[in-house]
């Protein structure tokens, strides 16, 4: 009982420090923000493919996150979350649990999608989810990052209810639907991962046979 109270206390502290972090600060660049945008755009070669230039464009979420240094006021954050939630699309089959073995491969791949003249990826190279760059997952992989929370035993701890499966799918598809300006990419929105690939990652997280939950 005492422990429970103590834990509740901890949560309150965490929450209040969050809202504290949301206090208004000057937008990056201050009065030079427009100049900065100009020199940034002027830094790239003119003769690259059009698709490369598109990668420098910002949607509303990107722009707002930059302005608020990744910490938008809650009200604005909620608007962004709502807008991002509306972008989520599902696979034609409607099945959200794929093959965890495929998901395991995607989680480890950090290459794909590099462009430019110095070290581009060969065309058609598999774009991975690169989950281990930021998350702990299967126990056997020791080289994991900590930018995101540990997802070890994701399914074991949270279960495999349809709600949990949908949550995992939605989160990978568009992370900003849940936390505006999170560090996590919006894999589905950008077409970085296909809906089918996302179902494989969902299975890697939730399937009881997946090494995420088994070991």
């Amino acid at each position: 009982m005492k422990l429970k109270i103590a834990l509740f206390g901890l949560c309150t502290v965490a929450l209040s420090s969050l809202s504290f972090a949301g206090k208004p600060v000057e937008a990056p660049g201050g009065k030079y923000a427009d100049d900065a945008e100009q020199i940034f755009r002027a830094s790239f070669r003119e003769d690259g493919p059009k698709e490369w230039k598109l990668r420098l464009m910002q949607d509303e979420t990107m722009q707002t996150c930059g302005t608020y240094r990744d910490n938008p006021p809650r009200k604005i954050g909620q608007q962004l979350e709502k807008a991002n939630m509306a972008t989520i699309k599902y696979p034609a089959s409607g099945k959200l649990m794929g093959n965890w073995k495929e998901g395991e491969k995607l989680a480890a791949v950090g290459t794909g999608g590099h462009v430019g003249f110095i070290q581009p990826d060969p065309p058609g190279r598999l774009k991975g989810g690169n989950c281990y760059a930021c998350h702990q997952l299967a126990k056997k992989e020791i080289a994991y990052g900590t930018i995101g929370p540990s997802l070890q035993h994701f399914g074991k701890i949270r279960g495999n209810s349809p709600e949990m499966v949908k949550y995992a799918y939605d989160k990978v598809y568009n992370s900003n639907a849940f936390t505006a300006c999170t560090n996590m990419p919006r894999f589905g929105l950008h077409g970085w991962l296909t809906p089918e690939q996302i179902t494989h990652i969902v299975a890697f997280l939730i399937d009881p046979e997946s090494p995420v939950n088994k070991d």
Partner: protein
Amino acid sequence: MNNQRRNVLKTGSGAALLSVLAAAGIITPGMALADWNKAAFDAKSMADTLKAMGAGAPADSKDVQVTGPDIAENGAVVPVGVATSLPNVTMVAILIEKNPNALAASFTLPEGTEANIQTRVKMGQTSNIYALVKSDGKFFMATKEIKVTLGGCGG
């Protein structure tokens, strides 16, 4: 750590010395020594390599040490060392089991040179590293696993 390095460089073992012999080539390498052991370096498996080196099936020895980290941040440069307290050592070698060719380097030690050598090797993947030592005409071996991890942004 880096500061330490500078100190070692600048003071520890004496000023860093570098000298370019203008007339490089006066002294040629490989002087009067046996030619590069092509058969051993071309061999793929551990067994074939040991055979090509005339080492047969060496006995494991607690008196041989392979030094190196348990984990390498990158496989392109893995610091490894071989040391032994065995007597009359005339040769030491470093073998990497899972590389395309197991033998990485071998060293002939004249009398007076200590059986304690450090170098850096490439590892294609996590593998056992073997130290091979020839002492009193007999071969001995020791091993250590070094894990090669994926690093950085992953691309």
